[in-house]
């Protein structure tokens, strides 16, 4: 165990905490930008520090291909390689393998696939994944899990869940640096509450430093999504961090935080920036639209970031999809937005005004009161009264 987790404020399931990692003391809830190849596209590490980024995610699969984990190890680890003084998290490599490689095949041994470099048959085992992650040196490393899409049904989900538990033991055995790197387990089980429960209990028995909720953010309906998160957070230990993998829409982050999750990662903010979309309190702003060409307001008048303080929508519009600077500036704003959201979640819980924050957030995003039903249901379970920001149901009108 190489972390400390201390809850500082609560509202029902939701909690604000201090997460002390080897390289940085973090405040949760927090969002982690994804730095696929040892870099966040469009931003320097200085800028990331300035906007308040605490943990960055690195992709083991991509780093193992280029420049290889051995080289990173030789050069002193990923922190030094990418000049990032704060915390790092690496995933196991399993997800990319399954999502990027059509010819990946999962067996008890591990994930067999065709190398994209030379077409050779390769095998990623739990042991190999942990070894690679040991070399990369991140503060948090992820177990290799058997991931299945939640849209799949049938016995495959059960098989994957039990295999995940078996692979967890192999990961624990292979982990050579437990005092410097925290190995998190990943809860699988699809949308089946029984399977999820078995998986949670199995992982909790292994007394890990932290737990992730995996297998979501892959096309399942929102109602199923929040229910799985709620079930898992209710069953996972209070005194350890909970990481919902692949969650990045601001609304999803707020709902999951209300349900008791602490950490999130997603490519969404940076990827959508490269397509010209900015994150704003009202939802999204598509800078490519013709109407933006004459709009001399900032992207978000309430945002304090360098982009919103200096640039008009009209200028950014002239850059997006044509000049790299457009992607850079929008990525900067979008990440700043997510960092600010994280800070607001943390401070509102510490200051005892979390429900007010949630209401205010929903009011800005749904000014007509048309909060989606899944959000209302989730907030009910979270014990947060959002009736003030929901319009009355149509049947009670006229």
């Amino acid at each position, binding site marked *: 165990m190489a972390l400390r987790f201390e809850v500082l404020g609560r509202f029902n399931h939701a909690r604000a905490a201090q997460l002390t990692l080897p390289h940085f003391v973090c405040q949760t809830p927090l969002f982690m930008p994804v730095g696929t190849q040892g870099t966040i596209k469009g931003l320097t590490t200085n800028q990331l520090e300035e906007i308040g980024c605490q943990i960055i995610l690195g992709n083991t699969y991509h780093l193992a291909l280029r420049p290889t984990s051995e080289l990173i190890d030789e050069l002193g680890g990923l922190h030094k390689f990418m000049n990032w003084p704060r915390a790092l998290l690496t995933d196991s490599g399993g997800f990319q393998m399954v999502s990027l490689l059509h010819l990946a095949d999962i067996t008890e041994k591990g994930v067999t696939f065709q190398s994209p470099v030379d077409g050779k048959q390769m095998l990623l085992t739990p042991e190999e994944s942990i070894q690679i992650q040991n070399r990369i040196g991140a503060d948090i490393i992820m177990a290799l899990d058997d991931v299945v899409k939640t849209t799949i049904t049938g016995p495959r989900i059960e098989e994957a869940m039990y295999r995940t538990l078996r692979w967890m033991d192999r990961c624990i055995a292979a982990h050579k640096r437990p005092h410097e790197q925290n190995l998190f387990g990943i809860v699988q089980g699809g949308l089946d509450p029984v399977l999820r429960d078995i998986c949670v209990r199995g992982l909790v028995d292994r007394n890990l430093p932290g737990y992730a909720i995996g297998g979501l953010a892959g096309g399942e309906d929102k109602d199923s999504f929040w229910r799985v998160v709620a079930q898992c957070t209710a069953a996972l230990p209070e005194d350890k961090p909970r990481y919902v993998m692949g969650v990045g829409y601001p609304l999803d982050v707020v709902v999951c935080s209300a349900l008791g999750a602490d950490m999130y990662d997603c490519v969404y903010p940076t990827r959508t920036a490269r397509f010209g979309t900015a994150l704003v309190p009202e939802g999204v702003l598509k800078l490519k639209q013709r109407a933006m060409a004459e709009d001399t307001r900032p992207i978000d008048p309430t945002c304090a970031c360098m982009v919103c303080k200096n*640039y008009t929508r*009209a200028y950014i519009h*002239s850059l997006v999809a044509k000049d790299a600077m457009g992607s850079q500036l929008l990525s900067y704003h979008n990440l700043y937005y997510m960092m600010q959201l994280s800070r607001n979640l943390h401070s509102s819980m510490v200051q005892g005004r979390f429900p007010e924050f949630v209401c205010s957030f929903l009011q800005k995003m749904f000014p007509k009161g048309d909060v989606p039903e899944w959000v209302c249901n989730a907030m009910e379970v979270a014990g947060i009264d959002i009736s003030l920001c929901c319009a009355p149901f149509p049947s009670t009108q006229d």
Partner: protein
Amino acid sequence: MSSSNSIHSSAMKFAVKAWSNGRARAGVLHLDCCPTPIDTPSLLLSTRKGLPLFISPDLLPSLPSPDSHLLHVSPLHFLEGLSMTTISKIGGLHQMLGLHEYGFAAVPRDSIQCLPEANSTNKVGASFETPCGRLLIKPAEYMEMISSLRPELWATLADEVPAWVSDKRNKTSVDRTIKWLDECIALSPTGGAVFGAIVGGSSLEERQRCAQEVARRNVSGYWVGGFGLGETMDERPALLNAVTVSNLTHIFWQK
């Protein structure tokens, strides 16, 4: 040898600090907007739509100052997606780019993507090949852009021709450039320093003729264009030499 060693305009002051044994001289450029003076000779940072490529504005201070406070801007970049009315509404380059302590030098050609297209240039305007197609820019249109953008210094519109054109075409380019110089000066906004454009291709005589004509006008400096269009490296020093006349105290040239 020379008359004044310094030049004033409302936004710019230039003075020569030291002369070498030859023609080279060290100078200092004061721009109202820049907190520290800029030593010359000085290299301008190239930009795309006003911002340096890949270096976002918050990272600019990490470059050595004051050497990186002069930015080259091509007004043609803004023809894609941003109207001059909107730029005026925002308040010009400084406001639009959030770069208040940087000086902007506007020249239409950027030597990367906006290149003079001599075959299509005619008596009405200068033609450029740009990412949004071939554009014909008339002096009046160009001055509208300058008035909206409000750079610290700007070059007048020129007819730049490659080294291999006929003598007749080369001579025409000088005639046109002088004509457009006068039209631009007549339309110049207050506040910016005018740099008269000097062309003449690979002809020493035409270069000299153009320089002499421009020197007669009331300009704050000189922009020497038409280089990097087919002349050899060997030819260049002589051509540049032909241009520097005794009362030229500020030159900036572009490859």
